[in-house]
């Protein structure tokens, strides 16, 4: 009889039950690693070390493998995201319509590089690779909302709106 003991939940937080649910759905199979990390990120917004360790031991994969997967895929975030996210599409159609300039403007306005979050935790700046809205290039996505034919002013206005109490 294999020892079926599973690690205890990292905390009382109810969201761990959701994570557990994904693993149970896949019969705690090792190949559910990516699916489970998706659930962690959806539930908590990012993957921290405790989460990766918990998932690794639950699925019986070496922590190195889980960490390797978490760092390999661009979608997985290892740091908490800002309150708002600003994504600049850097697909080909957006690129030839001036997305690089938009990104430079965003980096300058926010004082951070793509992939970083402002020190006050307000805004994360991300580069995305083609969201498929190529006909409306360049495209920016503020939180969930897509902005077509984006300009530097589009960003300025959004940042101002976010700063208002």
């Amino acid at each position, binding site marked *: 009889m294999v020892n079926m003991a599973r690690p205890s939940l990292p905390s009382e937080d109810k969201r761990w039950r959701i994570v557990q649910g994904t693993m149970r759905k896949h019969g705690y199979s090792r190949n559910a690693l990516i699916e489970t990390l998706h659930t962690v990120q959806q539930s908590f917004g990012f993957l921290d070390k405790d989460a990766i360790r918990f998932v690794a031991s639950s699925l019986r994969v070496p922590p190195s493998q889980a960490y390797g997967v978490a760092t390999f895929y661009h979608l*997985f975030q290892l740091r908490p995201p800002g309150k708002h996210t600003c994504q600049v599409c850097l697909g080909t*159609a957006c690129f030839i319509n001036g997305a690089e300039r938009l990104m430079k403007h965003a980096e300058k306005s926010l004082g951070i590089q793509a992939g970083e979050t402002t020190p006050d935790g307000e805004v994360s700046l991300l580069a*995305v*690779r*083609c969201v*498929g*809205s*190529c006909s409306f290039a360049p495209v920016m996505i503020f939180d969930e909302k897509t902005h077509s034919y984006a300009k530097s002013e589009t960003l300025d206005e959004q940042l101002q709106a976010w700063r208002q109490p």
Partner: protein
Amino acid sequence: MMSHEELEQTTAKVQQEQRAAGDRINVCVAAGCLSLHSDAVQKSLTDEAKKSGARCSVRGVGCMGLCSAGPVVSHEPAQAVAAEDKTTAQPTRLYGGVQPGHAAKIVASLNQEPVRELAIDTAMPFFAKQTKIVLENSGSINPESIEEYIAAGGYRALLRALHEMTPAEVVQEISASGLRGRGGAGYPTGLKWATVARAAGATKYVICNADEGDPGAFMDRSVLESDPHRVLEGMILAAYAVGASQGYIYLRAEYPLAVQRLGVAIREAKRMGLLGAEIAGTRMSLHLEIRLGAGAFVCGEETALIASIEGRRGTPQPRPPYPAESGLWNSPTLINNVETYANVSPILARGSAWYAAQGTAKSKGTKVFALSGKARNTGLIEVPMGMTLREIIFDIGGGVPAGHTFKAVQTGGPSGGCIPESLLDIPVDYDSLMQAGSIMGSGGMIVMDDSSCMVSVARFFMEFCMSESCGKCVPCRAGTAQMHGLLTRITEGVATHRDLDLLVRLCEMVGATSLCGLGQTAPNPVLSTLRYFKNEYLAHIEDKHCPAGVCECATTPAEVNA
């Protein structure tokens, strides 16, 4: 248990309901128009229709193609909805740039003249020059209704194959059609199916590659958002042909709407007994699951995609063994792209001879392209293989905006190349595009005019390959970084002729020695721009000047002119 009779009953029921509902107003609710808030347009049209008491229905449909005119709305007069022969029926009206405020006008126009200021000419070459096989239902059916797919002729090919054809006969039909893989490489689909069908193994898998990673490509997303059942039907037929009972659809997590609509389609197909155990009362079973990608371009490579489904880092394996012999969990695995599967049911429904009669000698059927960049009309198009690039860009696309001149068209994404004006009369097929130094690729087609700098475009694609390199093999990991550095030097106006020579040597080395397609094709954008636009490279190196005025070279164009 689903039978032919039930399909016909469903069809009759849907058609009766549609006739009873009168005029139809269709709003595009695929991701493109949705990002222009077509959901608000749909809502106000629904409200206005209710308020006016007009005999009409308002519904959400998939992509109608002309994204640059979004949000797009079409109006099918009641007579056209009911007509058996659509060619003689009153034509469908098409409206572009529709805002919620236009709703009342559109509803009031139902039995009147069309709303002039919103009307799109449906006879223009953008529509007239297209041939729709993959996209035939896109924009005319509700993607979340299996009944509407059935009423449009769906799932008949599947039932006929299950009841009247052997798996070998299905493979034979696909082989005879001449269909080649639409993911980009163009491998004969029938040959791939035959290899998996022949492979020894009790367990086999079918996989749909929906990891559309090429920047500037949104064909697969649009097909999945507009007509998901077409892809499912193709996959079920493939599973029957090769003897698989488990399948996966590997889909980009960046496409939440496609994920949701495909999920609905899978549930609906199961409910109708067209998916799951004992499909349509036969012994054939297929269980399909969606697997979400997590943002890695290399996972479009089939062995990397398999590694990702297995829950590992998406790094490729050397081939052979090919997945057809040893793929997912070392079992024989069939991997095809979304568009390839979308072609399967029409081929079986209308016969391989019909399909093979379209296209060129070696490239049959049609190809879907995502036309974007500096063209007047942009969006999703489907053309017969063999159409020239000039017809696509200047007739369908309407050419470049006024005041600019065409410079190049980019096909094949980071694995493809830039084709100049002098070659626009080549036919679009796998072999001609490769001879021109590009590739067919999955279908991204980006038009560039004189405002684009070709060195900067090459650097853009190299930056993409560099950051997407999985790091497993040295030529790709280190080579793309070195090439990117050299291209950056050129764009900054600080490179020498020796840098250019080194760049060319690196292109050859990385192309010849990389493990997978990502590295092997990474030099293509550089090589093709060097081949056709070498003067732009030389201008950056010798004159420290960017002819397009894009790069911030050491000297500005103004200083050069002074």
